[in-house]
């Protein structure tokens, strides 16, 4: 019984997208509960991917492929899961702030968040404060994540937080920020809830924020 779940884990850890999907489908055919596939297969696999990455044994592209395998497997499971579980670890709306067209770092964080079981809505680049507010209203995410790679556009993170407050949404969502010039000090200054110095600490911060939300 457990071997197919092990196979799912192995395929996701190896970043084999097609094989992961095939294994998930086979597990479902064998009547393994979707919750078990999610928890013991997908999520456990990504936990191991995370720790192997931290240890320096695997590299960013490996994590990316594993995250993709996880994400596409999740697409199969989602309709079969209870609504409380269908967003997995939580929902994140993410985007690069107005005036900034840098995409890759933000995409990497998005992919790693998906890999950690989050549902991610990527708004792309040059996202205006209004567009962030609109997305928070529409998707009601646990977390709003903003990226900026330029010291000149960083300030738009603060502007967006003010816009959330004006729209009466500030206490409905946690704000997570990151990007090369961003520091913990800056995050505190503009009143963000969390900060990630790189993609993997960003994911850790997102998990911590979701736990905090549950406690509140």
């Amino acid at each position, binding site marked *: 019984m457990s071997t197919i779940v092990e196979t799912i884990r192995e395929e996701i850890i190896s970043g084999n997208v097609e094989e992961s999907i095939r294994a998930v489908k086979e597990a479902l055919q064998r009547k393994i509960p979707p919750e078990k596939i999610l928890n013991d297969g997908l999520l456990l696999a990504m936990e191991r991917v995370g720790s192997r990455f931290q240890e*320096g*044994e695997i590299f960013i*592209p490996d994590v*990316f492929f594993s995250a993709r395998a996880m994400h596409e497997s999740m697409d199969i499971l989602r309709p079969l899961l209870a609504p409380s579980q269908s967003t997995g670890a939580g929902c994140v709306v993410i985007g690069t702030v107005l005036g900034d067209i840098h995409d890759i770092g933000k995409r990497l964080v998005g992919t790693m968040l998906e890999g950690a079981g989050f549902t991610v809505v990527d708004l792309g680049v040059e996202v205006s404060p209004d567009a962030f507010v609109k997305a928070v209203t529409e998707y009601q995410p646990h977390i709003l994540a903003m990226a900026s790679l330029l010291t000149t556009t960083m300030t738009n993170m603060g502007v967006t937080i003010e816009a959330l407050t004006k729209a009466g949404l500030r206490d409905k969502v946690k704000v997570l920020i990151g990007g090369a010039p961003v520091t913990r000090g800056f995050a505190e200054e503009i009143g963000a809830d969390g900060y990630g110095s790189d993609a993997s*600490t960003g994911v850790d911060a997102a998990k911590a924020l979701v736990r905090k939300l549950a406690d509140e």
Partner: protein
Amino acid sequence: MKEAHVEKSMRVNVEGTTQFRVLSKHQVEEIVSSAMEILERVGVQVNDEAPVKMLEERGARIEGKTLVRIPSSLVQAALQSAPSRIVLANRDGERNLVLEKNRIYFGTGSDCPNVIDPYTDALRPCLFDDVLRVSKVVDALDHIDFFMSLGLVSDVPRMTYDRHQFLAMAANTTKPLIITCVDGTGLSDQYQMACLIVGGEEKFQANPYFAVYAEPSSPLMHSKEALEKLTFAAERRIPLIYTPCPSAGATAPVTMAGILSQGLAETFSGLVISQLKREGAPFIMGGVHTVLDMRTATYSYGAPELSLLSACMTDISKTLNLPMFSTGGCSDAKVLDEQAASEAAVSLLTAGLSGANLIHDIGFLESGLLGSLDMLVLCDEVISMVKRILRGIRVTGDTLAVDVVAKVGPGGHFIGEDHTRRYLKAEHWLPRLMDRTNREAWERGEAKTLSRRVRERVIDILEHHDPPPLEKRLLSELEMVVAQADERYGVK
């Protein structure tokens, strides 16, 4: 953290790799010609009767008892008969080091009197157990290919230190050795020990487990001890490294071309004696040619001239078709600091680029007085970086990757491409000790400097590396040879 890419054997200055040379063909000819002129006009002092007699019989001109002027025809004949290719094997007989044009290998230096204790940081004389430690660290490092003792064992009888040292070297690593010896008898005893290890003289002859290091005395002298080693090695076909160590401005001319010419004359005269003793005897040329620092009278191990001259000698060795023993990874600094790291990086890159076969003295600090495990471990990382540069780039349809660029297009990214995963490990060098984390992560890890990370790796290897042991019975046979030598010198 594991390394992504480790070469077993590397050939440089060939198609696809980075190209480098210092001397033009014409400059090499000029230096070779000057060396021959020195031998014909000035001659060398040969401080042993038998080789002088042998040289005289073959046409050398003798003045007094020891001054020998060697005609160029003898040098040319010696260059003809010496092998252009020498193989060294490890303790298990595996032929790991192929010394021929442009194949590079890295290793330690030998016989530093002092060490810094990795646990207490105390500076103290090197003991038997310290060489055991070096042996273990050498065994663990991916980019250290051969082993010289690094330390000079001082807690054993002085006249037999070399046999004790050999025991410590062979005990904790299987890597090929380069040994030093007190004199001909010291070499003979170590040869006997090596034959015990590899299973007999025939096996040693087929797959030599060590090369022996000996040196002439600059300017232009061969000591009795050096000649004993040279002739014993030639008789038994033990690979011999004969390496002048002149200092520019003191024991050799101040000019780079001048020190090269004189050093080469010393090498040529050693080569002639070895080939007269036995045609085809394996002879490795080399030398630590460097400057005497004219402020401190230090024979400098960190001088850029050392690297430049080593690269020149390597160029010459390739014209002569002789294997080359070169130098790098050494410094005049007193601890592993910024000076040590800079001098190591410059010398290892230059020696690697030059394509020298055996690049030694890795781990030397304090101008050769201090054998440092820290320096050794740092150099392992530097060599790994150097090898990435030497490997050059592969240019093929698939590595030019136009199809991948077309697939990703403007504004996309390459992280999720199979092409990226497929080529990552072959194309990107990944550090083990060099830190590329962001400041927050670095501070989270206690803001360790490179020298702290290096020391932690030293300790980790000492605590956790498990080298393949020597058989107990074999070990006691070796100890017997050492004890007999001690007895002969009347010491216990």
